[in-house]
């Protein structure tokens, strides 16, 4: 996989969330596409071994941004030691944008790709509402910080217990007023989106399946989907990471 050395222009932390902006003059990312990233400073080291996949959070004027949770070693290194990054070109199949009105449904930091999507919708004049789930136990100003990225979004404070996404959809109300729901969030939010949209509204889900090669070679990012002749494993990195909800054999 070809990784390009790029300069980090901006770096921001909020609790265990990080925002990074870097200079990118290659092909601009489509909404829902992802990039692989690793810290250039530690590229001589063989651990962490794999680059980390992140949705393109935003892109404007030759600047791409990533919004991510600091979970383990890879994201910690990215958030701390990286004047320069090694990043791939934007990859995969993103959201398909048709008519509106549409709903964007996100969960916390994992709403990342919805920002670029809303920019696109804005640009193409598709009416859209954005709902972002914030766990009740998040720090007070978390929603405020997050809101900077999603002007006009509605922040829904859900419980941190199971069932949270259902509360989110209670808030959203009748889905039939939208032509498509675009979702990016915790697994439970994606699963709930699939359930509530079934038979009512088209839904597109941004998956975060673990990846290795990110180019279709390794078959590591298997997602069970329904094909013409039954279920099979698609590859999230090239067939996704965005899938129509009805295609998923969950």
């Amino acid at each position: 996989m070809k990784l390009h050395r790029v300069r980090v222009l901006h770096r921001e932390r909020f609790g265990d969330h990080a925002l990074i902006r870097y200079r990118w003059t290659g092909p601009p990312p489509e909404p829902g596409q992802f990039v692989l990233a690793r810290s250039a400073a530690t590229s001589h080291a063989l651990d962490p071994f794999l680059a980390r996949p992140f949705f393109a959070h935003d892109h404007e004027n030759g600047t791409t941004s990533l919004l991510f949770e600091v979970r383990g070693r890879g994201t910690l290194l990215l958030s701390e030691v990286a004047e320069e990054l090694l990043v791939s070109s934007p990859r995969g199949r993103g959201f398909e944008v048709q008519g509106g009105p549409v709903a964007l449904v996100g969960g916390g930091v994992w709403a990342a790709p919805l920002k670029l999507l809303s920019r696109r919708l804005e640009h193409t004049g598709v009416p859209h509402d954005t709902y972002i789930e914030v766990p009740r136990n998040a720090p007070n100003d978390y929603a405020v910080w997050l809101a900077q990225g999603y002007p006009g979004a509605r922040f829904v404070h859900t419980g941190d217990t199971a069932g949270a996404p259902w509360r989110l959809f209670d808030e959203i109300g009748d889905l039939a007023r939208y032509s498509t729901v675009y979702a990016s969030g915790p697994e439970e939010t994606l699963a709930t989106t699939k359930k509530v949209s079934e038979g009512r509204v088209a839904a597109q889900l941004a998956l975060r399946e673990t990846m290795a090669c990110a180019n279709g070679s390794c078959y590591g990012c298997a997602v069970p989907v329904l094909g013409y002749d039954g279920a099979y494993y698609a590859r999230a990195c090239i067939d996704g990471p965005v899938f129509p909800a009805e295609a998923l054999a969950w």
Partner: protein
Amino acid sequence: MVARATSLGVELCGLPLQTPLLPAAGTLAAEVLCGMEDVYGAIVPKTVTLEPRAGNPPPRIAETAAGMVNSIGLQNPGIDRFLADLDEYDVGLPIFASLAGETVVQFVRLCERLFADGRATAVELNLSCPNVEHGGLTFCSGPAVVGEVVAACRAALPGKPLLVKLTNEGVVGNALAAEDAGADGLTLINTVPALTVDAAGRQVLVRGGLSGPAIKPIALRAVYEVARMVGVPVIGCGGVTSGTDVAEFMLAGAAAVQVGSGGFVREPREILEEFVTCLRNAGLAAAELTGGLR
């Protein structure tokens, strides 16, 4: 460009290869071959089986220290579809088809299909797959089993170079058995059986095979020990991420070198370019490195 330098060429089982670099089976999709024509010496497609295989349910991969564990389960479309689409792998380089069966008969059937088709220049038997006739032990479980399957495939592939890919466990004995049974070359090694555990979730994450830089010293040892014992060429495989790694494998005795998971994190072309630099510094041609320890 690099690939044209004559000093990069090697010979493998009588076949001239423009470079000693090959992709490891299962780690390079046809979709990404474009632009690789001058990087590799031959192309090794993903292992194919007689029937289509759905593969294992996710999670299939987990990162480990300087490596990764995979449990793909040989997802592949089966030999019919494989042959129908084989031209996707044709970028003007020889194709080494990787085959796996659950029985010796399946291996032979696959060889016959490949032989009849004729487009594959060579065959690589992936013996690290379960042998249903031996209670699920792999075809690498011992010299007798290796000898049996290799001899049967040998007979089905008259005149076609036959490579046998082995696991690390029992590698010297299995290598000798493969050579005796008519193998023209040995690919060492396949992934090492491994496990990852998710401690927080108290569950097994992936039970599969370890690859990547973590296993490089293990693979180097296998190549070194086997190359001293056999007369056929050895293809090194395991943890290659740099040109220096390629040189290390050749010095340890490999005639060619496969890049697997290293290709996920490095561009194979860069690895080849680094290898060219190694050769320049040493003032040697690629072929001179093989077994070139002082």
